[in-house]
């Protein structure tokens, strides 16, 4: 009688190849500003921001089921806090990063309220909270109402240096969050989050600490969004409350994640790339571009609800990066 | 009248119904028995169109209704008193009946005739369905199905949760329906004695498949219990001798 043994495999050959490729690409990108022209560096920084936003929103809404329509709260908050910290005399680069941490920390008390809500109420409540944050921020005379302000302190640095440091910050933030998200999803927290997303009661019954899991993901996502907001400020210099706190950021995140492919790791990256290309190519058309974007969103919702990576995945028969655990069965050497 | 062929239905990843076929003639009562989890409710949810993941064919009076939406099947003459009754608790008894009458088929069953058949409903017409007792709710549920003037009506676990007196009253009303001979009735029951007493024919379900089928008068107690529990009958010759 043969005894089967099972071996746990957390990596596939394709997965390992992908990781090595990604590491090489990352190294190349880090060296890139030396060769690329200024506009390219700026544009790529924007791409890092999009990828970061998409990955983080996918973690929140796709994997943990927390569909927040208010992430712009942290996007704008981080930018505002940067301006405030600089006003108090802090070095702008430190302020950018510090503000993101503070914004992430502010997410903790918010989570005690928001995470008690579900579904549509959670979605709208997060949107309302973002609006509340915006209005409160606008009380600060530093923001000058609708006029906003600028991170002039950055002008103290040479434009090339400013551009490059922003680029590296963006690249580091994006890469860092890609790695972090990957680790989290494959960890206990990741499977706990997915269990909670699918059936909260069942998850509770097998001992998953539901609130703890949700909180960790919520705060992580807030921090990631906040980082993106900081880098956006560093890149754009200007801070306009209605723009930085606008709900269109959530709409972009939603677009990227759904067009790319919800609940996959590769999907949001693909979606961000697509969004970036669309923005670069068509945004000069102004209103009609946004019109078209909305139209594309509707088309995808109707025709390709799994997103592009969902389509690719079906053709390929799997993902590039393994998200789960494979059980490989091996018969022992005993039987004849 | 109602012909069901090779129904297969899945519940998530579980194959809940496997290759079930049967038929119900006009005026006939078919009893369906089986333990909890045997697939009875999934089978009838599939037949009425509420359960989407199904293959097989359902024919009513020669019309193929296998792919129709539930409301269309009701329009074709198939009604169900669902498990758990599923009344509209915020609506009055009268409204619960009215809604079915307005959207079902026209026929002999009207509010007046349904109230005659189920007189317990007369005093509670204005009450909200959510405030009723179990027996009253069951009566409303049956009345609601009748208001659609079905050719075949499926009663899924109608005695569930009712007191013995309520069940008696219930089967009395059902007896009148049976006596009229115009409707095919399918009775899904946990109470084996009632099922065999009331039905003309019995089918028994176990793990999604039919394990026994026959006229209720001809089946022995042993036949039924072994089919119900999935026990292999020791000797058929032995049980036939006892019959």
């Amino acid at each position, binding site marked *: 009688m043969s005894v089967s043994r099972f071996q746990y495999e957390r990596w596939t050959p394709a997965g390992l190849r992908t990781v090595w490729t990604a590491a090489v690409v990352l190294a190349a990108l880090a060296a890139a500003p030396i060769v690329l022209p200024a506009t390219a560096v700026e544009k790529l920084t924007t791409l890092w921001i999009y990828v970061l936003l998409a990955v983080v929103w996918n973690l929140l809404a*796709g994997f943990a089921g927390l*569909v927040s*329509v208010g992430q712009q709260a942290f996007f704008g908050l981080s930018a505002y806090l940067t301006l405030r910290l600089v006003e108090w005399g802090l070095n702008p680069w430190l302020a950018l990063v510090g503000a993101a941490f503070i914004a992430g920390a502010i997410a903790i008390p918010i989570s005690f*309220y928001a995470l*008690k*809500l579900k579904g*549509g*109420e959670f*979605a709208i*409540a997060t949107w*309302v*909270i973002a*609006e*509340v944050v915006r*209005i*409160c921020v*606008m*009380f600060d005379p530093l923001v000058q109402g609708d006029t906003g302000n600028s991170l002039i302190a950055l002008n103290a640095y040479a434009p090339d240096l400013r551009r490059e440091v922003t680029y590296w910050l963006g690249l580091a933030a994006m890469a860092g969050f890609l790695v972090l998200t990957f680790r989290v999803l494959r960890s206990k927290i990741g499977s706990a989050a997915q269990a909670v997303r699918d059936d909260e009661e069942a998850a509770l019954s097998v001992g998953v600490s539901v609130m703890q899991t949700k909180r960790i993901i919520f705060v992580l996502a807030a921090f990631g969004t906040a980082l993106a907001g900081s880098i956006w400020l560093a890149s754009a210099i200007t801070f306009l409350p209605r723009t930085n706190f606008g*709900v269109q950021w959530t*709409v972009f995140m*939603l*677009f990227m994640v*759904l067009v790319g492919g*919800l609940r996959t790791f590769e999907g949001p990256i693909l979606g961000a790339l697509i969004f970036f290309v669309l923005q670069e190519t068509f945004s000069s058309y102004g*209103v*009609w571009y*946004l*019109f078209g*974007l*909305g*139209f594309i*969103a*509707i088309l*995808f*919702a*109707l025709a390709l*609800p799994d997103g592009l990576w969902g389509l690719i995945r079906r053709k390929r028969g799997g993902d590039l990066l393994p998200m789960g655990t494979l059980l490989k069965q091996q018969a022992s050497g005993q039987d004849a | 009248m109602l012909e069901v062929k090779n129904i297969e239905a899945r519940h998530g990843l579980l194959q809940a119904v496997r290759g079930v076929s049967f038929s119900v003639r006009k005026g006939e009562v078919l009893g369906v028995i089986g333990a909890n989890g045997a697939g009875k409710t999934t089978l009838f949810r599939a037949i009425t*169109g*509420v359960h989407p993941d199904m293959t097989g064919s359902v024919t009513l009076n020669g019309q193929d209704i296998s792919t129709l*939406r*539930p*409301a*269309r099947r*009701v*329009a074709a003459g198939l009604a*169900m008193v*669902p498990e758990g009754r*599923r*009344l*509209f608790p*915020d*609506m009055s008894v009268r*409204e619960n009946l*009215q809604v*079915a009458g*307005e*959207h*079902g*088929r026209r026929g002999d069953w009207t509010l007046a005739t349904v109230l005659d058949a189920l007189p317990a409903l007369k005093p509670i017409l204005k009450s*909200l369905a959510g405030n009723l007792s179990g027996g009253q709710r069951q009566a409303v549920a049956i009345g609601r199905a009748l208001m659609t003037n079905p050719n075949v009506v499926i009663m899924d676990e109608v005695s569930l949760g009712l007191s013995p007196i309520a069940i008696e009253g219930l089967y009395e009303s059902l007896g009148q329906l049976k006596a009229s001979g115009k409707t095919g009735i399918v009775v899904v029951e946990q109470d084996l004695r009632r099922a065999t007493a009331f039905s003309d024919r019995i089918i028994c379900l176990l793990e999604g498949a039919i394990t026994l089928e026959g006229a209720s008068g001809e089946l022995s107690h042993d036949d039924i219990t072994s089919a119900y529990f999935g026990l292999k009958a020791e000797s058929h010759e032995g049980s036939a001798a006892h019959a």
Partner: protein
Amino acid sequence: MLDAIIQGVLLGGYYAILAAGLSLMLGVTRFLNLAHGDLAVLAAYLVIYLVATWHLPIVWAIVLMLPVMGLLGWALQAFLFARTMKGGFLLPLLTTFGLGAVIQNGIYGVFSSDVKSLGNFIGNLAWASWKLPFHISVGKLPVYIFVAAVVVLVSLQLLLSFTKLGRAMRATTIDEEAAELSGIDARRIQRATVAIAMVLAVLAGAALAMRSLVNPYTGPTQLIFAFEAVVIGGIGSLWGTLAGGIVLGIAQSLGAKISPQLFQLFGHIVFLAVLWWRLKGAGSLGLANFLRSLKGGRA
């Protein structure tokens, strides 16, 4: 302060019309239409267009738009909303945001970003008011809109309570499957509901354009207010949308009395507070449920 409260109550009338459509859709189709505000604004722009460019009397323009938007609503449910329901919660979100973007930018593209208003076309109604004791003046237009809101809600109540369609709508809201088993074609009922919601959106849009200015991007803000009114009054309750709208209107007006920026903020805070209060142990009680329990029956 008293006149702020009165203004708030009257503002609640406008919110009730907008919120009622949202609430009906939410109940019968279980679909949260985030583009509802944009659709109301679209209707407003079309009414203004008919009045300003084709010189139609306002009432005619509104009456003409009712079936047009109703038909649009029917089509949206049939070809768009219903198809996205199987995608869980996120697909409807993407769809309605996409629809909103299409509407907002379409309006901008066709009509430009100028703010528009029906205020120029209603004569002195835009500013006429009655003088009450204690130096309070009450605008005539807000009162008319409030009265219209009550008429609309009464009509909806009659529809729901006494008509075949209304009963079917209620049954579908309570239990869609059981409704189907009773012979109700839920899909048809849902299409009709969205058509009704769009008719309400026309009235709300016209009211908004008369009271104040509209621009192509006003939609989402109005949607938030409508949702806040629905939640404060209790999801699933028709008269709750009026109660919720009134509470919201009062909160906003009191805020505005102190400072213009507090208009929205006070409303948001009341909304978040009501949500919190409900979670803390009031169960799923909203204002309307509370009123309902006082009356001892269903509204």
